[in-house]
């Protein structure tokens, strides 16, 4: 068997293992985002939304849908990779991979694909849930929507991977999602347009990377955005390239994986 085929089989095996892992615990991985987002739609969309009025010329619930989908995709892609990779380190089952002839890039791709598939699956689930609350929703630019969905889940899966590499305890895998990701997401334009903010807060918000991800996705779904789409896409791609290089460097050096 050629080396290429061997790597492909090992990669498919790892991806299959990762997908089976989160599907096996679907009550913990797939159901909670659907329940939480339903509550957001009920409270902020149906109850409070009509009192808020329109946002960027759209119904508030309609404006909120892309943001909530993105929030779910980001947290789930990140959480999947950070918990899965840290678990294999913690249980020492990472040795199964390290002793095998699998190259490091295939190990990285395998785990990232686990995060990407979960992120996209959750995105689809939340979108389906949103249709119960806003059945008239139609996607303006499906290609851009899918592209951003894919790139975002890759980006945050890579971030989760780096977090897991450096994590030495279960505390370490919850610190960044709780104290960094969640505040940035909430302040990144999920629930509001930065145009309603005073100048100083609008300028500060521009430094929040989540703003670009959420707004690019909103541009794909609704055709409205607070940021330049080419710039946002370029930044996402640049960060994916930087994080991929960092992950491979860390794996090749054995940081957090080999003694």
């Amino acid at each position, binding site marked *: 068997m050629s080396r290429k085929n061997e790597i492909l089989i*090992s990669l498919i095996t790892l991806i299959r293992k990762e997908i089976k892992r989160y599907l096996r615990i679907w009550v913990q991985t797939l159901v909670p985002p659907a329940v939480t987002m339903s509550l957001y739609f009920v409270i902020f969309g149906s109850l409070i939304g009509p009192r808020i009025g329109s946002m960027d010329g759209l119904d508030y619930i309609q404006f909120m849908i892309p943001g909530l989908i993105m929030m779910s995709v980001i947290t789930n892609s990140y959480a999947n990779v950070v918990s899965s990779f840290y678990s294999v380190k913690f249980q*020492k089952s990472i040795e199964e991979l390290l002793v095998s002839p*699998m190259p490091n890039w295939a190990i990285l791709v395998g785990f990232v694909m686990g995060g990407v598939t979960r992120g996209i699956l959750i995105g689809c689930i939340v979108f389906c849930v949103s249709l119960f609350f806003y059945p008239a929703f139609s996607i303006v630019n499906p290609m851009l929507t899918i592209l951003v969905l894919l790139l975002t889940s890759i980006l945050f899966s890579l971030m989760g991977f780096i977090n897991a590499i450096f994590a030495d305890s279960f505390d370490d895998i919850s610190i960044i999602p709780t104290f960094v990701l969640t505040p940035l997401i909430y302040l990144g334009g999920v629930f509001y347009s930065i145009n309603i903010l005073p100048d100083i807060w609008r300028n500060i918000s521009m430094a929040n990377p989540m703003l670009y991800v959420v707004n690019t996705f909103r541009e794909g779904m609704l055709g409205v955005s607070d940021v330049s789409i080419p710039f946002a896409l370029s930044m996402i791609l640049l960060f994916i390239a930087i994080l991929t290089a960092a992950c491979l460097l860390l794996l090749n050096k054995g940081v957090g994986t080999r003694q």
Partner: protein
Amino acid sequence: MSQFALEITDLKKTYDSDVVALKGINLTVQEGDFFALLGPNGAGKSSTIGIIASLVTKTDGKVKIFNIDTDENFPEAKRLLGVVSQEINFNNFEKVIDIVTTQAGFYGIPLKEAMKKTEITLKRLGLWEKRNDQARTLSGGFKRRLMIAKALIHEPKLLILDEPTAGVDIELRREMWDFLKEINENGTTIILTTHYLEEAEQLCKNIAIIDHGELIENTSMKDLLRRLDVQGFLLDIDQSLDNPPSIDNFQISLEDSNTLNVAIKKDQSINELFDQLSDQGINVSSMRNESNRLEEMFIEMVKKN
């Protein structure tokens, strides 16, 4: 033509904590050998195995597996190597069959073929009936077997076992010995680390002892045992004694009132001992080694070092 299954040259390892685990080990293991790598805790055995298996990064030196330099073509070398780690290293929440099939996949074995190989391997190790059980429900002994099944799934030519029978009951240990002997006879080179020196004595043809990161012995098992000067024997006797009998040239003590503990030098005749005991009216009903002979030698060597 016979070749080396493993060649280690000047292998060094210093951990980030500045602990020097290996100070430049040189070691060769012949193809087909059953080789024991012994040493006290912290001697450097697991570091050596970790480096061979790519779980530990080396500081310096060379490792060749069947003449393949791991620095030049580690994937190819890994294909020839199976490793049974000291600690359980599978996901306890997965099914037995999934753990082994997945491991095969990591070695590039297609799923259909992996399923067939898994069935053969699990049957061979008496795990087939438990194939659909979650690994966490297995007993300690079955978990050990599962570790071996994982390591053998890609049919490695060199199998390294790091204390495979630690915490395993005697019956299962014997079963594992038989299994390991069988795969060694079928051509797999085996390197074993163990704290049960009886295990090494029973199974291994050649032996190396590591202590403080240095190789202090590397020879055949026969040669090592030949060097033993004094052996202790326990003799069960028919009558009860209050004091040990006094016999010329032999050191005798009482283990209990019905058991004598005798130290016999290599150049002494055991028949002479029996004759003298018989003269004193002491009848020996059975005899056994006081302790493992290799264990005595091992402790002596490590103490000297």
